[in-house]
């Protein structure tokens, strides 16, 4: 199977070089052709499993507890302004 690497990279928000595009095209299709062996397995009427120990609907009490301070939350950001995270404009062209 040929994978549209550029489209996938766009969905995943990754920027790839020309060489990477060619390399991933080849490697992903080789991995996918291996994975395709699953199509041979009869899974009619087999339910899906995503949680293996049988836990369901784990909830916690609706109570507040101490969390990170504003300073701690911002401590690793390279883009902050007036105690807030600074991000690129979304609705305009401003940087």
């Amino acid at each position, binding site marked *: 199977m040929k*994978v549209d*690497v550029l489209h*996938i*990279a766009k*969905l*995943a*928000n*990754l*920027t*790839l070089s020309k060489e*990477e595009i060619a390399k*991933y095209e080849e*490697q*992903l299709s*080789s*991995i*996918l052709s*291996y*994975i*395709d*062996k*699953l*199509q041979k*397995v009869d*899974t009619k009427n*087999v*339910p*899906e*499993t*995503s*949680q*293996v*120990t049988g*836990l369901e609907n*784990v909830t*916690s009490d609706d109570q507040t507890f101490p969390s*990170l301070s504003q300073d*701690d*939350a911002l*401590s*690793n*950001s*390279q*883009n902050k302004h007036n105690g807030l*995270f600074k*991000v690129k404009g979304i609705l305009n062209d401003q940087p």
Partner: protein
Amino acid sequence: MTSHNNLTIKKAREGLLKKDFSAVELLNAYLEQIERKNSELNAFITVCKSEALEQAKHADKLLSEGQDLPLLGIPIALKDIYSTKGIQTTAGSNVLKGYIPPFDATVVARLKEAGAVIIGKTNLDAWAHGSSGENSDFGPTKNPWNTDFVPGGSSSGSAVSVSAQMAIAATGTDTGGSIRLPASFTNTVGLKPTYGRVSRYGIVAMASSLDSIGHFTKNVEDSALFLNVTAGNDPLDGTTPTVEVPDYTKKLDKDIKGIRIGIPKEYFIAGMDPKVRENIEKAIKFYEENGCKIEQISLPHTEYAIATYYIIQPAEVSSNLARYDGIRYGNKRKTFGEEAKRRIMLGTFTLSVGYYDAYYKKALKVRTLLIKDFEEAFKKVDAIIAPVSPTLPWKIGEKANDPLSMYLSDVFTVTANITGHPGLSIPTGFVDGFPVGMQIIGPHFKEELLFNLGHRYEQEHKWFERNPYET
């Protein structure tokens, strides 16, 4: 190297309590070994010298006051994917280079409460993506038994830190074999607990439905002692059930007569190294001679495990790594390394419109069938024994350009992650100078049985007493 570097947790605790040596002296022996060996082995990304000294001094104070905690004064290394308050946590990736977490992972908090001294943060395949340690953005870790060869991954630095006597024990994570494989390649004991037995909170997520939080120790008894500290429900991780946590050291010596052990025929495949096979068969003989009932069993869907794993795991990876935007913490997405990008792309593809049913949904169904295989098997046997790896360690660089062949090195380990079962990797001797290991797999939350079986074997063979620097 002093005699302190040979110690198990148990022996080190005895020495500390008897005042044969102080926690600071113990720590210094390990810091000196790191100083001697780390430039060659590249096991540590960060060594926490000053913080560790403070913790060791504090441990000595508590010891002088007659206090006793399960890991008081024991130097422990952490895979650099465990968040540590105030200490850089990279996950082996340039994306998190320079990131200083403002909080501790639950396991780190529990280790500190138990008196452990955190000696450093160990190298790993970036984001725990790999079977060899070569995918680290901080350079590959070397196998101390032969530095031209890989130590196994992804918890490569943690395995090597224990094997090369730079820490008494170390933490790891096992999503597809990342503890068991490097344990078997380095002559250490590696535990992958039942999914949910140990909290994932504060550990950088790889694939959330598969990630198991475990550790490396020199021997089985230490592994049980360590799990006593880390296991149990954590309100901050909704997948940790309130299943009782026993004292895992209690049943180590129990008689193993009559225990039924299954040998799955699918784990003794044609392509396997015949010397490794012979080694594992010899270990199985021990159980036979000691009154266990050995039964040939079948886990019929085994051949589909890797394919299932390489759908579910990259799908969860692509979702977990989507959070790294370089805005709140960490660096920009362009700093992702080659393997992380490959897995993000693969996962994004199998989750995308038009392919979701054929790949992702299909894999979740085969997951159910793999679980059924084990449920059927555990009706007939109490535990399963299998090799950890079909081969010995490979040369650094040998599989670097062939991701599929690298993925296939996990052929015997991924299934326990897909099904959530616990697995204990135990040294079974040496082939051509390289360590080999077997894994004992049990039903959910039956770690006690694995320790019992492992300990009895180990008491007879004591492979753990060998180290790469013995003269």
